[in-house]
């Protein structure tokens, strides 16, 4: 939770600066790709968003588990907020990947393992947010949404395995635990990932603050019967 308190105080200018540095590395420092030319530069935000959404859903999983184990309602709040941020970056991953796919494979979509698993992930966590939003403070419904979040996490290791081991149209930039990229591209990728993670932390911090304020307002209204 210290990380959350820190992220809530993170100035927006720091995040914007980090993203600008990422853009510099993605567009200026990294060389063009031998076969895809300049269009491959979509990769830097696409892969960074994909990794970020997996981290966000891991936070949802752990937080939901802790909530189900009775460790406190604040874990459910964190899960809800992380789920929203995770869904945002999953959406960005799917949309940017679709555009990249159109440019390289000449199709907007194909039902290959990694893309299919990621689309399923999107629906699973969109479902979680729908169930959680409908809970309206009802403990039984909040527990139901937490169970849904925990069960939905099974798709995350499937996606990790699909990246590492399954062959499809998707570029094999990562095989096992090796990254098959020019060193400058690898550096640019990790810098962009750091910038996108910082952005995700910033958004999560702000979202959690908003949720806590909403809870306080609801409690005041309940107490004073407004």
């Amino acid at each position, binding site marked *: 939770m210290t990380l959350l308190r820190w992220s809530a105080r993170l100035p927006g200018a720091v995040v914007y600066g980090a993203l600008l540095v990422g853009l510099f590395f993605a567009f200026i420092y990294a060389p063009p790709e031998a076969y895809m030319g*300049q*269009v491959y*530069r*979509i990769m830097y*935000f*696409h892969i960074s*968003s994909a990794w970020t959404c997996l981290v966000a859903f891991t936070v949802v999983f752990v937080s939901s588990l802790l909530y189900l184990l009775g460790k406190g309602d604040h874990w459910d709040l964190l899960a809800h907020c992380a789920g929203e941020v995770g869904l*945002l970056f999953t*959406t*960005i991953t799917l*949309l*940017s990947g679709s*555009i*990249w796919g*159109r*440019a390289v494979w000449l199709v907007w979509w194909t039902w290959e393992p990694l893309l299919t698993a990621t689309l399923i992930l999107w629906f699973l966590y969109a479902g979680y947010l729908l169930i959680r939003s409908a809970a309206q403070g009802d403990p039984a419904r909040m527990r139901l949404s937490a169970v849904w979040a925990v069960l939905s996490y099974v798709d995350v290791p499937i996606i990790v395995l699909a990246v590492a081991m399954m062959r499809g149209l998707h570029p094999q930039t990562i095989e096992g635990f090796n990254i098959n990229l020019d060193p400058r591209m690898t550096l640019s990728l990790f810098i962009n990932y750091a910038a996108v993670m910082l*952005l995700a932390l910033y*958004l999560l911090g*702000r*979202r959690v603050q*908003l949720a806590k*304020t*909403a809870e306080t*307002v609801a409690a*005041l*209204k309940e107490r*004073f019967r*407004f």
Partner: protein
Amino acid sequence: MAYLFAAYAVIWTALFLYITGLRGRQERLAREVERLREAMGQEPGPES
């Protein structure tokens, strides 16, 4: 290059929409807090 531009335009638009949505919710809450303060007979708080 058009696809590269389109991809980053979609990315930044999605981020912009989410951040704008967050700000909108924050402002609605701030108005709610002010309304509660007034209803409870307190001095209005500082502008958020």
